[in-house]
């Protein structure tokens, strides 16, 4: 444990923050501009994991394991979300024969 912490601390904290922000921004951009539903799911995953990384980094720097515990929760939630999300995507595909997000435009007033 101590070893890993030292390794993590081998990289300055600012770098983690910048790196995670970039990955998060990529994830957001992916969600916003891509139309394939699976890519959008992956982008969401990217956002979640950037946050995970940031949590782990802060946890190590502050010597507080609760950040890592929180990461586990996020991962569990992400797994569940992916399971449900993929199921929805399969159903959408069966119904519309398409993975284009625009094919779901029935969700309107």
């Amino acid at each position: 444990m101590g070893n890993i912490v030292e390794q993590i601390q081998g990289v300055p904290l600012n770098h983690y923050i910048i790196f995670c922000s970039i990955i998060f921004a990529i994830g957001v951009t992916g969600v916003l501009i891509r139309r394939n539903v699976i890519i959008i799911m992956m982008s969401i995953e990217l956002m979640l994991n950037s946050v995970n990384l940031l949590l782990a980094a802060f946890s190590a720097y502050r010597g507080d394991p609760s950040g890592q515990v929180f990461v586990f929760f996020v991962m569990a939630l992400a797994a569940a979300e992916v399971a449900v999300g993929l199921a929805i995507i399969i159903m959408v595909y069966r119904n519309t024969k398409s993975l284009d997000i625009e094919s779901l435009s029935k969700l309107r007033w």
Partner: protein
Amino acid sequence: MKELIWLIPLIPFVGFVINGLGRNVLPKALVGIIGCGTVLLSFLLSVSLYLDIKAARDAGEVAEISRHLFDWFAVGNLKVSLSFLIDPLSSLMLLIITGVGLLIHLYSYSYMSGDNGFGKFFAYLNLFIFFMTILVMGSNYLVMFIGWEGVGLCSYLLIGFWFKNSSYASAAKKAFVMNRIGDLGFLIAMFFILSTFGSLEYKEVFGQAATLSVGDSTVLIITLLLFVAATGKSAQIPLFTWLPDAMAGPTPVSALIHAATMVTAGIYMVVRSNILFTLSPVTMEIMAIVGLATALIAAFIALTQNDIKKVLAYSTVSQLGYMFLALGVGAFTGAFFHVLTHAFFKALLFLGAGSVIHAMSNEQDMRSMGGLRKSLPVTFVTMLIGTIAISGIPPLAGFFSKDEILAYAFQHNILYWAVGFLTALFTAFYMFRLLYLTFFGEFRGTAEQKSHLHESPWQMTLPLIVLAILSAIGGFMNVPEALGGHHNLAHFLAPIFEGSNAIGSTTLTLSHSTEYILMGASVLGAIVMAIVAYNTYVSKKNIPVADDKAEGGLHALSYNKLYIDELYDAVIVNPLKKLSTVLYKYVDRLGIDGFVNGLGEFFVGSGKGIRLLQSGHVGFYIFMMVIGVVAILIYGFFY
């Protein structure tokens, strides 16, 4: 017997429930038997109670039966029980209510037999007897108030009995509203009594009142408020205009409620509270003046009315004014005596008028009558007795009671006597005018009406005969000493006035010769008026002209009822209506409705605008979400 006094109100109530529930199911005969029978039972109980009280009085014992039924409610120091008190005053009132009530029930059986609402009518009448007996039997002001409100309700229901005629329905509303103004006075008076004496029980209130000094300001307020209540219920200025309109109800109702019993509730209440009123000479003076003014004005209006029931209605108002005059000058016994005799002869006159109306196929205008004495002999004779009685010609009932009042008025202030005497002259004139126009001369109705003329059946004539006998001999229960009597009624009622006497009440101190002169004057006046009326309406056949041929001066003033209704409309009703319209238009519609509807419209409108955002494009949703997150971030960053 003493244990059973609660049956007196209960039995008519049972009758009300049975007749009310079975009004469309029960056969008419059964409805009539239940309606009359319940009142008969109450009457028998009342008679036996009266005999008990009478025996106790004669033996010099305490003539009082009080019966505590149950504690109604207790809040803090206030404890109100439902309890009854029978003393000489209430036992006499009970006799009148159930006795005259019984006769009128019997009369109604025939009078209303053709009406669709027969069962409903008897149910209402029984309910009225229930409330009226509660009113007089209660041993505290709250129980009296229950009855007070209840009889007002019955009066409303019965005036508006033929509610399909909208003018009848509005007459009922008028009566109800005007009574309500008076009731408010009663209610506030009760609050004052409670805060002053800490109880509503007569005994405690009067016991504590005896220790107060004359002219106490709280008592002044209480008595003034009670008097306001009495002006509403007993149709005095300024609240008297409902009573003539109340003639919209069936005639037996006019006889029972608007002549014999309910309208005398105000006098009963004042007599009951006599000690409070004795403590407040200012109220007494106001009462005398209001009573006198009412008596004169109503008699003046009655002089020219052509509707037979309207004449009697104004006559009732006038006689009630007489009673208040009597109360005001301290003649409590005289006032109550007049209540009793008036109940006899006015019920008789109303029932007689009902008999005439019945025979005339519902015609009430005296200009279409005339010469009815041949076709309606029993009605004629009994009405004649009633007319003589109300005019104050001896030895019939009205003479004794009216002269007692006039003697007290004379002693109090000769001006009061003069106005009272003038009223008595008016009374004699309009009553004989009614009699002559109806029963003398030629028949003036249509040929069809003439062929229908008939004497009423026995159910209607029997009450007339009984009431005529009572009107004839009723006066002998209180013959003044000047005429060799013993003031029996005054002695019987003496316990009621013990408190007032201790403070110093009025006793008649006139010499016998003065009394003889007063009696002679009023009797002579009445006879002269009868002759004048005979001259005008029989010898000269001076039948009142049709409505459209107006006569000027005093006649028009009297015929149009002194324009009092118009005055009230202009001063009170119309401004209130206008105020209501303004409130309706601007406060209710514009303000309250505007606010509520505006709020609804705002949300509907904004929903319509905002729903456009929900375009269905998932990409757009996500975009909005991101913008939201960014916005929250920025907000969190800066604040």
